[in-house]
């Protein structure tokens, strides 16, 4: 089912891409993909290091110090150690799905980053319905977590999978309403247009309510505290990752930071004016903004107490939903009419 849906989407995308105008040559595409891959790897790696250091600093600790200068190579050492271990699937797991779900998630998030416009002229996502496609694909993430959790054949994984779906119900719809209001303001679903329409004023100043709703939903999507219910380490051990063995766990860690990069990129593109900034390369501004956002999320992780599932559902339907609607109506009345 999984392979079917991804291939269907791929076909759809290819047909979309053929109509896209910017990237025509396959060579350019490959070069771009490699560049973005390096960016993702570097960002994910340093984000891991930064998170360790920042949380250590908040907690009055040192963090990694031994491997490399300032412990810069500590993550590399950890990756090496984890990769050196054997990979196995538990007896009770559905081996095929369990083997596929996590790499699929990683592939999906990398693909989503490729879709985003990192500078005005690059990006495959320079197409009429870029925003919708990104979020249509993004909605597969909780589903893949669900598949992984169920396939692991572990009760904690199962609970985590259930939570994943319930959480999705609570935040997905308010998030889509906010996206609709963004599309309304920019009068386009093209990501490049959205960024360019923020040249004078960022959307966060036009729609603070919408940003709040989107931010909460994004935290839930990224499994960041206080909405890390799926991975809840003090409750479910590691949730859907409980039965994952070491090499796959490296994937999961990498996925965590890739998703973080993806999430901060989306937030920056939609609310903080994307690559707009003075001097320097556009990509630089984009990455710096994403980094600041990521550090904020890390501080939040060090602070927040995990929310309960029923509370999150109530928050989603009784707070985020009305807020998103109010935001839509206010934005329409103030800026569109």
């Amino acid at each position, binding site marked *: 089912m999984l392979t079917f849906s991804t291939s269907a989407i791929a076909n759809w995308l290819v047909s979309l891409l053929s109509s896209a105008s910017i990237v025509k040559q396959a060579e350019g595409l490959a070069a771009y993909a490699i560049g973005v891959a390096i960016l993702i790897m570097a960002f994910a790696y340093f984000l891991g290091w930064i998170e360790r250091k920042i*949380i250590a600093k*908040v*907690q*009055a*600790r040192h963090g990694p110090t031994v491997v490399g200068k300032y412990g810069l190579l500590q993550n590399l050492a950890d990756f090496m150690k984890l990769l050196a271990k054997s990979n196995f699937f538990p007896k009770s797991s559905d081996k095929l799905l369990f083997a596929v779900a996590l790499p699929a998630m990683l592939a999906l998030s990398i693909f989503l980053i490729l879709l985003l416009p990192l500078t005005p002229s690059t990006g495959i996502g320079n197409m009429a319905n870029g925003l919708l496609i990104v979020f249509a694909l993004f909605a597969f993430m909780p589903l893949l977590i669900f598949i992984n959790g169920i396939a692991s054949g572990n*009760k*904690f994984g199962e*609970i985590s999978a259930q939570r994943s779906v319930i959480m999705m119900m609570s935040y997905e719809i308010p998030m889509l309403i906010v996206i609709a209001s963004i599309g309304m303001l920019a009068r386009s679903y093209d990501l490049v247009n959205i960024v360019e329409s923020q040249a004078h004023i960022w959307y966060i100043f036009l729609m603070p309510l919408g940003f709040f709703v989107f931010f909460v939903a994004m935290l839930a999507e990224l499994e960041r*505290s*206080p909405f*890390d219910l799926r991975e*809840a*380490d*003090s*409750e479910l*051990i590691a949730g859907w990752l409980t039965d994952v063995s070491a090499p796959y766990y490296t994937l999961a860690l990498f996925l965590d930071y890739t998703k973080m990069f993806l999430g901060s990129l989306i937030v920056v593109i939609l609310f903080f004016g994307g690559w707009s900034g003075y001097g320097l390369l556009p990509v630089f501004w984009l990455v710096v903004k994403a980094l600041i956002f990521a550090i904020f999320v890390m501080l939040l*992780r*060090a*602070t*927040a*107490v*995990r*929310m*309960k*599932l*029923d*509370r999150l559902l109530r928050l989603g339907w009784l707070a985020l939903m009305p807020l998103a609607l109010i935001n839509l109506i206010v934005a329409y009345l103030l800026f569109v009419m």
Partner: protein
Amino acid sequence: MTTKINIGPIHPSTHGVLRLVVELDGDTIVGVEPHIGFLHRGVEKLAENRMYMQNIGYMEKIDYVAPMAYDDAYVAAVEEAMGVEVKERAKYIRTILLELQRIASHLLWLGTMANDLGQFYTLFMWTFRDRDKILRLLQEHAGARMFYLNMRPGGVVRDLPPDFEENTLQVLDYIEKRITEYEHYLESNQVFIERTKGIGVLSREMAIELGATGPVLRGSGVNYDTRSNKPYYAYSELGFRPQVMFVGDSFARYKVRMLEMKESIRIIREAFKKIPEGDAVGMPIRLIMPQAKNRIVTVSRETPRGEAFIYMIADKERPYRLSIRTPSFINLSLIDEIAKGSRLADLFAILGSLDLVMADVDL
């Protein structure tokens, strides 16, 4: 249809080797069955085979978060068996040290409770840092970080170091500031309030019926504290007031411990004002193969986790029978009663609020 899940013995928030078999109906807990004994060392039997002073090292290991409390409880039992009076200055010193130990233990609990609620170790590290300052003071006096062995029948192993008072008062000022800060930190967090208020309610009647002790009992509105009901050492002179909350939920238990820390700080300050001069050093080791005066001894002491009750039958060289009632043991047996009907995520808030030490449970 219900499912059973196994929480522990290896799990991030059971604080040791506790296994809970939780029966779930959806996300609601139907029943919790604790399985304990992974850390059972047979302290009672060990004690029967060792001489009085040899036991003291084992007693400390009953509760490794507040070792001095058991150190003291056991030595008090030996004292009563021998008919030895505690020296006046030693009484004050013991009060000060025990209250410092209580603050240290409660600080550790505060961090782990925040951790159980899903905070990423931040408060844990902060309270650890503050606890370390207290351990530093105790280390200065006793010569070890955790297992002090500083109680001797009739007194303590050595008098307080010369700059102890000054240092302690400094640390207390620091900690008082910090505790208030942490209180604001947690209570300004809406999610923390939601996750503790009204969760795991234990009514007054049930608390008495099920034999809860310590902050759990006081959180349910029972005004019973060994320090005030059966005063020992200098507590009655220092005007100790037990801290009671009346709601009986996780938040009340949290609040009781926070108030207790403040009360402890007050008591220590008071004790430094009233501490008499004189000798505080207890008997040296080799004198203590006692000529038992009282054969049967019962001692109650308020450890940070609740009331430790020691029943000892003294023999010539070694205890004939040493029976210890540990507070965590009975507080853990409440879990089924408290957790029934709440959500799975609440179970950890409740476990955190009970302040369990598994070594204390298994004895």
